[in-house]
């Protein structure tokens, strides 16, 4: 990953975090990493733990950012989320996965997709 893409991602995460806070989210973790995967932001919202993937793109040329969270990435996120749930003992707390899509060149720059995908409960 080049330095530029890294900086772009970082700036995107900052914007996403601020945007989420205006939606009433409370950010509790950033860049949570485990061996099996990574989660950009973890937040509390409406009594649920929310695991958030931030996708930043400079243009629409490669398609909409929200389509870039492929099944493999989803699986890695779910694994990391399960790790977090276990680590914080949140088994009884509802949780969901959101995606924040940021397109620098679009007119509506920030888009939030709630419940972007679901955790397969058989994994538990």
């Amino acid at each position, binding site marked *: 990953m080049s330095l530029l893409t890294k900086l772009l991602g970082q700036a995107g995460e900052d914007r996403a975090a*601020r945007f989420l*806070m*205006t939606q009433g989210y409370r950010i509790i973790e950033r860049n949570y990493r485990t061996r099996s995967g990574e989660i950009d932001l973890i937040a509390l919202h409406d009594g649920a733990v929310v695991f958030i993937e931030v996708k930043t793109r400079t243009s629409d040329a490669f398609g909409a950012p929200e389509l870039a969270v492929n099944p493999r990435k989803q699986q890695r996120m779910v694994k990391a989320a399960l790790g977090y749930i276990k680590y914080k003992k949140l088994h009884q707390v509802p949780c969901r996965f959101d995606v924040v899509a940021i397109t620098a060149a679009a007119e509506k720059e920030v888009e939030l997709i709630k419940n972007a995908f679901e955790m397969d409960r058989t994994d538990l």
Partner: protein
Amino acid sequence: MSRGRPQVREPHPARTADLFSNELECDPLFFERLSRDAGYTRIAGLDEAGRGPLAGPVVAAAVVLPEGLRIPGLTDSKQVPEQRRERLFDVIRAQAVCYGIGIADEQTIDAVNILQATILAMERALQALNPQPDFLLLDALSLPRVSLPQKPLIKGDCRSHSIAAASILAKVTRDRMMLELHEKYPCYNFKKHKGYGTKEHLLLLQKHGPCDAHRKTFAPIAQMLRGEAN
């Protein structure tokens, strides 16, 4: 009664002691009720947090409360302790007909001025409302680009319940953003002063110089930057 000395009523200590203590106390739903009597149904209160500080964004909130709702313990955000603000934040979000929060970041504040940035943040908060309000109650300023009927109230956050609710949402959101900034730039201790120009903040600013989150056009920082340039 005899003529001569006019009767002077001695002020009684019990009457004078705290004569003006409830100077600002009034019915917090007064303006909401007046607006409803005039036929408006969705009355939004607007307020902002973070006009004064040297760092961080300015955050505005707009709240439409259901008719007649009073939330216990809800007054102006500056009079409510932090812990209770957090609790009220959830209560307001749950009870409000709708609410919106808008921000204007540090770069925007430097590019236009703080008043314009505040107005911009308020417009963004307003845009996030669904359904849209038909009347606005504001804290001592008006929105020139918005065509809705509006009433600016001096000390509005004490006089109107809707504005107080907005002030809580704005304050809590901004404080959370400052906590984020604290994680990013721990050397300024944003966690404690939330970007306001306290002695400690100014001292740390001297020591480390300004960062991305600081408002470059605000006097102390502008002064420092000029000093460095010379």
